[in-house]
């Protein structure tokens, strides 16, 4: 469990980082917190020849905001969000999600951008940021572009990023004050990857339901949304959701039961939230 030999680079700014990434191409991997990459390298499931460490780039830890959104540097750690060192534009949803990621030691290193680039749908950020319709800011030697998280995530460990592109920031739209959010993570133990991860957003326009750990990317539960629309939660039980969740997720048995429970509990969680006016 030692990685193969690699060369280590620590650029001081984004332009140097993207230049290196462009030069080294497929042989290089970006490393930020390393909480997923390093175990994979130690297992020799990944054997990059070059590591480009972006944690020395101050700009990637910065936060800025507009009336519509907050822009988090890609190397913002889970801990910074959990501890409120950066504002939470989703009225507490980001903070709660961050606090459920792994263990404290992991959260002090793991990053916002890293989690998205890794694209594991049983992790928190892919689902939560899909639900919030966040947009990643990306740079390469060819310029800048923006990719919605929903299109960035293409599969397990697979994203829409070009090999020479670096995520530099994550822009999260402000959650409207009248939107109630709910989050429920189903895991065997505190800090484990989710077996099911549900986000419910309940606003005047209706409910939006997102689910992680069901497929290779987070999915929106369209059928379930229309099933629950207009019904009160008290009139439904988890078993009432099983069939429709099954069709949204193509799951059955205990897995489907877990998804149905997670969604139901996320809805319950959302209902408990005060509406800010």
């Amino acid at each position, binding site marked *: 469990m030692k990685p193969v030999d690699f060369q280590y680079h620590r650029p001081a700014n984004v332009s140097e980082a993207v230049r290196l990434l462009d030069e080294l191409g497929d042989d290089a991997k970006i490393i930020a917190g390393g909480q997923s990459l390093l175990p994979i390298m130690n297992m020799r499931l990944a054997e990059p020849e070059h590591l480009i460490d972006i944690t020395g780039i101050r700009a990637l830890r910065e936060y800025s905001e507009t009336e519509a959104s907050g822009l988090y540097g890609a190397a913002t750690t889970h801990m910074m969000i959990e501890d409120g060192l950066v504002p939470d534009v989703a009225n507490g949803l980001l903070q709660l999600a961050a606090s459920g990621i792994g263990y404290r030691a992991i959260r002090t290193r793991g990053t916002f951008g890293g989690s998205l680039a890794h694209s594991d749908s049983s992790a928190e950020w892919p689902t939560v940021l899909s639900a919030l319709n966040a947009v990643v800011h990306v740079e390469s030697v060819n310029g800048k572009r923006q990719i919605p998280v929903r299109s960035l995530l293409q599969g397990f460990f697979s994203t829409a990023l070009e090999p020479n592109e670096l995520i530099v920031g994550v822009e999260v739209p402000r959650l409207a004050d009248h939107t109630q959010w709910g989050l429920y993570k189903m895991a065997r133990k*505190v800090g484990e990857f989710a077996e099911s991860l549900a986000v419910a957003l309940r606003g005047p326009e209706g409910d939006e339901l997102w689910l992680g750990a069901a497929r290779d990317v987070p999915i929106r539960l369209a059928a379930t949304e229309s099933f629950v629309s207009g019904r009160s939660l008290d009139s439904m039980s988890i078993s009432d959701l099983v069939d429709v969740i099954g069709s949204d997720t193509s799951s059955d048995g205990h897995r489907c039961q877990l998804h149905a429970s997670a969604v139901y509990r996320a809805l319950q969680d959302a209902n408990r939230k005060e509406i800010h006016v």
Partner: protein
Amino acid sequence: MTAQKRRYGIGARVLRREDERHLTGRGAFIANLRLPDIQEVAFTRSQVAHGRLISVETPEGLPADRVWTATELAPLAEPLTATSTLKGFRTAPLPNLAEDKVRYVGEPIALAIAPTRAEAEDIASRIFPEIEPLPAVTDVKGALAGDSLVHDDWEDNIYATTSGDFGDVDGAARDAAVSITREYCMRRQAVVPLETRGVAAHYDRSADLLTVWSTTQTPHMIRDMIALQLGMEGRRVRVIAPDMGGGFGAKCSVYPEEIALAAIAMELDHPIRWVSDRWEAMISDTHSRDHHYRITAHAASDGTLLAVDADIVVDSGAYSVHPWTATMDASMSSAMIPGPYNLRNYRFQARSLASNKTPSGPYRGVARPGACLAIERTLDDLAHELGIEPHEMRIKNMVTKAQMPFTSVANKVYDSGDYAEAVRRAHTLIEHDAWREKQRAVKQEDRHRIGIGYGSFTEQTAHGCIEWATRGLAITIGVESARLTMDASGTFTLAVGIKSHGQGSETSLAQVVSEVFDVELEKITVLHGDTGLTPRGDGTFASRTMVMAGGATFGAAQALAEKVLRIAAVLLKEKVEHLKMSEGKVHGRKGSVDYATIAREFLFTPDHVPDVDPGLEVIYHYTSEVQTGAFTYATHAVVVDVDLDTGAVELLDYAIVEDCGTVVNPHIVDGQIIGGIAQGIGTALLEEIIYDADGQPKTTSFLDYLLPGASEVPEIKIGHMETPSPYTVFGMKGAGEGGSIAPPAAIANAVTDALREFGATINETPITPERVWTAFEHAKQKDLTGATR
């Protein structure tokens, strides 16, 4: 011998002396070892569960001593062959590196040596074994079918079958008011000490001494086996076990890596070291459990347990580990099924199977967690059939205090205690009646249920050699030695043959010395884990260290104390019988003299102390008075909350009342209990090594092999009873393993109790949400079919 209360003696609640160095990062583990020119080793292990090893392709252009396969190693070291005297036992020699066949994923095939581990892994990754796959034997059904044979020269996949028939099971069955048959399964587990295994070896040509550092619970045994396997004289081998981060039985067997590194070091002019990584640990440390039971039990209408018939099958994996053999679990289990109960009619058959899985070895509790699950779940189901509260069912059937010492139906001598009192106290400690109230208060429509469960057991600890012999072991274990020396400054050095690897024996054994001499623990050094520095001993396992090494220490301390008193008598010009030792001095009627003066006078100027034989050093060898050991017992009680929607089980409350005889150090005993229970919770709820049909282990990292952590272990309420064993020094009984034995039984009983109204039963561990939910759903389906009929 002493009536007065000692400050740091038996029963003193002193902090563990070893913790300071561990908590401040000053421990010296095998990975910390600094040896000049040391090179690191990486193994190439089989990725195939079962197959013929056709060839091993090694990388070109490397010096010959960088890569080793069986071709180079076999002439240097014999394979490990655990033998047994059990009738029909089949041996399964464990190669140091695979030769003609591979029999489990993780079996070492070759090893590479390089200046760093990463470079060694680079080389190892370029070693390509050519393996012709054979059908893998991966479950009990497949093993019993015998279509594929793990060992070609056997006619089936059974290491050995043992059986016994005591009393009149069939006769008792005819008189029974209720008879039930149940099947139970405790799935395969890894052992998972925090520190993985490691071995380093160096042959010192000037001293003609092979030194092997190993993370072993049994340094003297490893030394013997290295000498034997390498064909060397024992005097040329020294084994050192440095600081260790736990063992729990995983570091208790002799491993191929130890023999291989020792043999290769003899050929090299530099030291070599291998430190296992977690993936290797999960597939190459001995596994455990994988127990399968079919129990038929008969009871009278008043709850009296009349007879038990047990069919026990243990999947022991690919090889028989040395010295325990592949039949250890099955034979132990068959003797422990009768538990703490006054059972007179008992029949069993116990089969140990070979499969293409990692070899099984000891794990804290050895076999008893499985036996306890089987008998305790059965007892609860009998109680349910008869409408008796489970704790009352236990109390009714337990061996009574008046019956002690009691010879069990399986011929074990239960030495002492009040088993039923432990149940009563656990019942009180858990607040049974209050929980029953809360349980009843849960509404029908609520999506959760509460359950209460008990698990009782009596546990053989510190058994002697005859006991091991009855289990068929070729190496019978039963002697521990201690050498106690007083130096010229009047301080003490105790050297013992055991290896403390987390038990705090440096503290508790020093307490034994302090009990005799009444000195601060700081005045006593405890040496252990080095065959060059310690007298022979068998090691730390089977909850034996405190009883046996403690017994030896006491013997040595008493003998040394006699001499110290005689010296003091001369110096003080008083009679020996007028002297007593306290607070670091010998006090007479007229005066007193401290140990430093006694030692200096005696060692520097022996002429000042005529008529006392020279030497301030005593060696004492301890053997058990009663060979079946001292029986520790306990009752665990647990309250669970079961989520009917997900099947998740939460532990709401946990209590244990235990009796390990005289408690030497309450802190350490409590620590052992809590740690054991944590591991038992892992067995009960979380841990499982899953193999697929091809024999690939699917849960080899902490991503999918879940261990209990702080958030999974509730506050444990501990109640102590202290019934001294009549057969041991101070009445001590072993306390190391008990915590881990009953949690699976108690938790399975509690979850079953929670689901009684639905008729769902939990007979398999780990009790995963999926298993609970499935049992619940099946019961619901059955209920529906029943209703339409």
